[in-house]
């Protein structure tokens, strides 16, 4: 089981990091989700891998599983879920406003020259 969990965590992390390094927002978000899954599995295994053990004190239990990492994972899931929702909305708004889903700050972010606005320029770049 150790090998399964360890390789699973490793694979999720590798996929997450690869996608995160892409240049467009959607793969980045998927990569971040993979990364947060990897972390959740990783946190679980930090309490040691135990099967069929109770997490609370019971007189006839042969042993216990550590419940704290499970509480940590629950917190981490809630937070990463909220963050993912936020970043999806952010990416979508960014796409709708600029017409591009590039994750980097592109040319439109460069401060315009002094006279650009004054010359009654056309619509901002990236819009039809």
């Amino acid at each position, binding site marked *: 089981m150790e090998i399964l969990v360890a390789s699973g965590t490793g694979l999720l992390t590798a996929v997450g990091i690869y996608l*995160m390094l892409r240049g467009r*927002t959607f793969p*980045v978000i998927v990569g*971040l989700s993979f*990364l*947060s899954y990897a*972390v959740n599995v*990783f*946190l679980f295994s*930090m*309490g*040691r891998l135990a099967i069929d053990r109770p*997490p*609370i*004190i019971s007189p006839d239990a042969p042993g*216990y599983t*550590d*419940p*704290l*990492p*499970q*509480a*940590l994972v*629950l*917190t*981490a899931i*809630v*937070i*990463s879920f*909220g*963050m993912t929702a*936020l*970043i999806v909305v*952010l*990416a979508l*708004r*960014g796409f709708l*406003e*600029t017409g591009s889903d590039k*994750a*980097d*700050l*592109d040319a*439109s*972010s*460069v*401060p*315009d*020259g*002094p*006279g650009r*606005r*004054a010359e009654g320029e056309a619509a*901002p770049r990236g819009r039809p």
Partner: protein
Amino acid sequence: MSQWIIAPVILPAMTAAFLLLALRHHLGPQRLASIAATVALLAVSLFLYDKAAAGGPFPYRLGDWPAPFGIVLVLDKLSATMLVLTAVLALCVVLYASAGWDRRGRHFHPLFQFQLMGINGAFLTGDVFNLFVFFEVMLIASYGLMLHGGGAQRLKAGFQYVAINLVASTLFLIGVGLIYSVTGTLNMAHLAVVVPQVPAADQAILKTGALLLFLVFATKAALVPLHWWLPATYAGTSAPAAAMFMIMTKVGTYAILRVYGLVFGAEAGALAEVAVPFVLPAAVVTLAFGAVGLLGARTLRDLAAFAIVASMGTLLIAIGLFDVPGITAGLYYLVHSTLAGAALFLLAGIIALRRGAMADRLAPAPAMAQEDLLGGLFFLAALALVGLPPLSGFLGKVLILQAVEGTPSWPAIWTVILVTSLVMTLGFARAGSVLFWASRDGAEGEADAGSAGGKAGGAPSPAAEHPVLPVIAVIALLALTVGWTVAAGPITHTLAGTAVEALDRTAYVRAVLAPETRFAHDGGTTAREGEAASRSATAEPER
């Protein structure tokens, strides 16, 4: 008394909920409530500082669970200092925002209060996982504040900011998991006791965890090479948000000081001072990077953002010494750079507003209203941030130079600090002359060209149209910097006491754990299980 320790977290949380639920559509009462709550927060923080200055660290046990099992908040001089600084900064920022910035987007004041809750919690907590939770509270609110007002560029910068912080949060969790897997605790005081006893076989795991945490804190503190998010974010957001973010980089610094001065401090056995070799070189490079970036700035906010990167470098050079003179100088400089940096960002906001379409670009433009006043304020803020006499930036740098003297690499550090001061002076002088002196020429040119029908930029509007509150906020921040300079003697004396206490591992551990030693013995062999169970129970309300 001890009940008051939780107040800096509860008060903003309740205020934010109240603002959202009761006053959602009423901006006027929202402003009043938000300002009143911030004033109350300042009063509470001052009260707590007074208490902390009188005695050693005070723990507050959430749900009254005994210390290593439950979550504790710890009030000591260091955290109380940071609380007061946060409240002072928050008051200036909320006054500034109430003059009209809060109308540009929705829910400015609730987000602002939630961010205060997260920042105060991060300063108070004595538990590493709880630190993560408060970091997240602070960040979630900061995402909202960062995007306040909208705009395409802000969305793009916001995406990067959120993505980088998500990665940092992931690293934080991995680091916390690694540390927990070896030590079985996340309470900072308990960790300080357990870390020296970790068997040699597990030390590599613990070291990995500790250094991953350091990466996270270094990201928050914008240490090179993890600083890339800062200029884009700070320059991309609105002025009040950027000013409030000044304290967020300090949260990273505080966490570095807390975790690596206390848990992995000089007495941590094989893992003593695990992060120390990295802080000082990274800080020196950060300072150099900030100064060079400042020369290349094309807008005033870019300039301010790179000045902040440079000041974080200076600050971490002092903190990175991890001794009493270093931390004393660091704390003095920390307060100074927060106030001066916030003043510069707020000033940049005012200037951008008054120059119309030119915003804060460093290029000649028609003269703005009240140019002499703003120019004077800019001059003061620039003096403070660069570290020229007579303001506190100069004293802070002198203290840091004195603290560094005697370390093996002090000639190099002195050279970098002094040369970057010169480079930053050049950058600020260039920006100031373009903004305030070249503008006159621009205005004359404008008058000549005016008859030709060329309408460049927004015409400067009369001073009466401009709200006076933002200017007062800037003046207040700069006045505080002046006060910080005038009272430098007694302040450094007090801060030296704070630094001694911050590095005093024994007193911290005794204050947090002492009443619980009896309980731990009662628990006997089931202590690990009991600890885990009680911790998960106390973790419940935090979610």
